[in-house]
């Protein structure tokens, strides 16, 4: 599903080279729910950017759904990002000028779906997150939790191969955070792979697998999957 | 506090100085064109002889045939017949002075064979002309009343014609020829800055008349009439002869070609003068003249010029374009201002969080736009000066270099009134364009921008 082999990311300035990520080897399978943790500055965000195809990398290979993204043009990467990846961010990143319906619509337009299909997908996605009655509201008219649900709806509307969640509950209070997590788990249950970056160990434990990043290096810790299964039941 | 705000405003203008310069330029270019055009029409619309424009009156009475065209533009109707003009001058009227004006072209030629003759646009008038219209003299003065009565061969030259004929020397008492007639110079006019030449209703600015001769002399010697003769239909075939040959026929005919100007000691006597004119025309009607309904006009110079200005007003397309141009420049300035202010959102919300009141911020930004406005006004005035110089030269080019820059420069002069107007306009418009950006910036919630840091 997602496989990184010896991926490195180096930031260069005139004076120094910083290895933000060093020789990352990683394999995430379809349907997994993986949490990524690590202290600030450890390379979490860089990993997220690489995994989400938001940044390019210098060394190694990155296979997404069996395709090596290395050396792809910007246009190809954009298309791949659009098709394979759904994003959920800490600060929601909704487009403030657009009502819910049109926010969810954004990636679908880039995908090139026709109008009917877009409408159906938008309505479905908003149905899943429980906001189908508020299509015409602007993001600012919603609570934080609701905004994050819209973001999730936007992320899943295009049926991505995996969902990349960056501190999805970081800006939310615990009640809302709980419901957002439940939503993500529900989506995971439906077969969507989820990679979630968080600094919250409690949340991280709810994932099936935890990857820790320290100083640009990845260590993979498989959680007790039975533990996870019990919780969800 | 105000001083503090002022220094803040100055500092803010200095940072991102390119934007400030752009803004000043936007306002300046708009102002430049606007003031250029406005100065031209302001100078062009100025009332000549303003201090007595309410006491000088143009006298018209309609002596055309019944079938003549109706009068649509009053000041450009008809003139008087020679006979009527003289009857009125000799009658008992409320006017203190009268003068008549008609135009001719004569050839002035010196007895000195080395001086080549030249054609002078000539005013044919009486001696009151010079006192009524405040003509300044360099040498000598107006001819006497007896010269009018005796049709004496006298001429008044202008500085220009005196330069050509006598090399600029005092030529009073000298002789020269008007066409083939020997005449004596009685006066040489000093530079006469009339603005527009109203007395022959041409309202010309550039080329000046260069000779003045008595009406009685011109009639006696059959000096050609360079005038539109308006005759009754039965006389139309004689018009050409009347213009160049048959002067006796002309002065006894019903053809109009004489402009009559009256000076009243008091503007309020105009009604009395109108009453007189009505009486006169009625008396002439009894003689079978003035076949039409009464169309008499006694119009002050002030009104004449104003009517003329109204007719001219809508001609220049630039007069329409300049304000639009200015607005576009202002819209640009708004955009720049908005961009400049919104960049400072964080600073503003921080200040607000630290307790700055709205009005305090408002004065700071108001200072900022006012400074921009004043700078724009100053640069704009300079641009307007350049624009006017350019227009002056275009005008000279258009007249095929027949007019000198000196003769025209008053029509393109930027005076204190227009400079003040320029800077004031710039300041007012800078405040107007500042309104929305300032309103936006002072309404930024305190610390709203800090949250996401």
């Amino acid at each position: 599903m997602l496989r990184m082999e010896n991926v490195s990311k180096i930031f260069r300035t005139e004076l120094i080279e910083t290895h933000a990520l060093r020789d990352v080897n990683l394999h995430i399978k379809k349907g997994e729910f993986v949490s990524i943790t690590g202290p600030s500055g450890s390379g979490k965000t860089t990993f997220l950017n690489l995994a989400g195809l938001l940044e390019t990398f210098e060394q190694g290979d990155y296979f997404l759904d069996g395709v090596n993204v290395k050396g792809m043009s910007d246009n190809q990467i954009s298309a791949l990002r659009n098709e394979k990846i759904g994003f959920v961010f800490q600060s929601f990143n909704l487009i403030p000028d657009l009502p819910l319906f049109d926010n969810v619509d954004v990636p679908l337009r880039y995908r090139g779906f026709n109008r009917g299909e877009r409408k159906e997908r938008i309505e479905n996605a908003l149905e899943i997150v429980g906001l189908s009655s508020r299509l015409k509201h602007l993001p600012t008219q919603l609570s934080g939790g609701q905004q994050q649900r819209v973001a999730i709806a936007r992320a899943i509307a295009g049926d991505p191969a995996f969902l990349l969640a960056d501190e999805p509950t970081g800006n939310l209070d615990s009640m809302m955070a709980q419901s957002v997590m439940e939503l993500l788990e529900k989506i995971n249950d439906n077969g969507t792979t989820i990679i979630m970056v968080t600094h919250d160990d409690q949340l991280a434990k709810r994932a099936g697998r935890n990857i820790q990043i320290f100083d640009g290096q990845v260590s993979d810790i498989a959680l007790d999957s039975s533990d996870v299964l019990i919780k969800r039941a | 506090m105000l001083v503090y705000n002022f220094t803040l405003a100055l500092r803010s203008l200095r940072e991102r100085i390119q934007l400030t310069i752009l803004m000043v330029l936007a306002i300046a270019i708009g102002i430049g064109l606007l003031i250029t055009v406005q100065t031209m029409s302001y100078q062009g619309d100025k009332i000549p002889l303003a201090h007595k424009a309410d006491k000088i009156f143009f006298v018209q009475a309609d002596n055309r045939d019944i079938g003549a065209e109706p009068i649509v533009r009053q000041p450009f109707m008809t003139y008087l017949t020679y006979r009527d003009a003289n009857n009125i001058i000799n009658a008992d009227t409320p006017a203190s002075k009268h003068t008549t004006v008609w135009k001719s072209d004569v050839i002035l030629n010196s007895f000195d064979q080395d001086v080549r003759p030249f054609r002078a646009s000539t005013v044919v008038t009486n001696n009151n002309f010079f006192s009524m219209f405040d003509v300044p003299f360099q040498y000598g003065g107006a001819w006497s009343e007896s010269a009018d009565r005796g049709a004496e061969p006298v001429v008044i030259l202008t500085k220009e014609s005196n330069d050509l004929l006598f090399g600029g020397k005092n030529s009073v008492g000298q002789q020269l020829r008007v066409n083939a007639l020997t005449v004596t110079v009685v006066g040489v006019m000093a530079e006469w800055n009339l603005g527009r030449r109203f007395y022959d209703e041409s309202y010309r600015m550039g080329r000046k008349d260069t000779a003045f001769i008595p009406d009685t002399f011109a009639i006696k010697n059959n000096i050609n009439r360079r005038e539109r003769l308006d005759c009754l239909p039965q006389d139309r075939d004689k018009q050409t002869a009347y213009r160049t040959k048959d002067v006796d026929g002309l002065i006894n005919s019903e053809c109009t070609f004489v402009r009559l100007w009256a000076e009243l000691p008091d503007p309020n006597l105009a009604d009395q003068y109108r009453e007189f004119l009505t009486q006169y025309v009625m008396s002439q009607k009894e003689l079978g003249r003035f076949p039409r309904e009464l169309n008499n006009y006694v119009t002050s110079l002030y009104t004449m010029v104003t009517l003329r200005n109204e007719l001219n007003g809508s001609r220049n397309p630039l007069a329409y374009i300049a304000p639009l141009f200015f607005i576009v420049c202002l819209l640009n300035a708004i955009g720049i201002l908005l961009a400049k202010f919104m960049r400072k959102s964080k600073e503003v919300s921080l200040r607000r969080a630290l307790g700055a009141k709205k009005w305090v911020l408002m004065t700071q930004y108001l200072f900022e736009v006012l400074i921009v406005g004043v700078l724009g006004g100053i640069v704009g005035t300079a641009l307007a000066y350049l624009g006017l110089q350019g227009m002056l030269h275009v005008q000279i080019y258009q007249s095929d270099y027949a007019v000198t820059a000196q003769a025209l420069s008053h029509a393109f002069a930027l005076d204190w009134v227009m400079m003040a107007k320029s800077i004031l306009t710039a300041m007012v418009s800078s405040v107007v364009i500042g309104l929305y950006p300032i309103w936006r910036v002072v309404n930024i919630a305190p610390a709203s921008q800090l949250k996401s840091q």
Partner: protein
Amino acid sequence: MEFRPILLSLKQNKFLSLLISVQVMLTVTVLSIATSITVETLKAWNMPSGLDHENIVSVRTQFFDPEVNLANAIVNDVNRIKQIPGVIEVTPNQEIPFDAGRPSKVYLSSEQDAEGFDTNFFDMNVDGHKVLGLTLIAGRFFNQTEVIQSSAEQATPVSVVMISQDMAKELFKDHSPLGKTLYLAKESQPVQIIGVYSNFMNGERLNGRGKSYHTIMRPQVIWQHGNNPNYLIKVEQGSAASLFEPITQALYQTPGRYIYGIEKLTRTQKRMYDGRGSQGAILLVVSLVLVLIAGFGVAGLVSFLITQRQKQIGIRRALGATKWSVIRYFIVENSMLTIFGLLMGTLLTMLFSYLMTQGSGQSFLSFSQVLYCSVFIWLINIAAVWLPARRAAKVSPAIVTRSA
């Protein structure tokens, strides 16, 4: 195309959007008015003169002494000028090319309601066509016996005339004008057309009516005090300026006269066009400066909008927008505002042209001009958006994970 999201987004940025539209509106108004007037003014601008105008000199002269014997004076003038080295031909004439006076009307029949055709008469002697360097198109030139030389009082009307090519076309379409008759005024004797000559420019008045070459040549030299002939002189290549003084001196040999102008026809031609030319140039320069300013303004506003929307652009990129679709977004957005502004501007232009022509009632506005101006401004605006939009496309999608 993403019209819907753009419209929704514009709704949230009403002020700035309006600013752009209003700018476009005013700019297209000014540009349309200016170009329409200019095109109208420069109609028939600098048409071929049909003359070797650099080598033809015109002299305007006047006798102020009524005692001068005009018949002798004219004969003397012509002889004296001819003797000057460098002079090739000379003819007395009334009208001067490029400066012909009020047009006259000629008629094809003597009926009271016959249609009149505008023209300018050129009265010259038998050498007239040589001075102007006209080519014979059909028929023949005048011969000496046909030329009437007389004072105005004793003159008999001419019996033959020549007409210009364009005049022939207007009067007789494709038929041959040779031998046809023409009435040079209402209730006059008919004259016979004996030849057609090549076109040359008459003057401002008929040029303004699209009849620049409508002339009729009459074989006559008529004099009268106060209305005596000018001279047209054909000179050797390049010698015109140096001949002004000898010609002037030759003419001043007759006393009692005044010469008020001697110039090359080139100068006359310049005078015919320079008023219009400079007005048109001023209007065009002003409106081009305006377009430039408005272009900068639009670029500035768009660049401000883009700075404000950095994050949004990053989000779009993250959600799969290609660089091109970011650029396209801004171009489409700007074009929508521009087109709205252009439509409003067209209405405003109509209003203004109505106001400006209320006096004369003659509309100068042409819709094709407005259309050209609109397209031009649209292109300028696309260019103005292009640079900031390219910058927008460079916004990294990774911006979305920052500052979170």
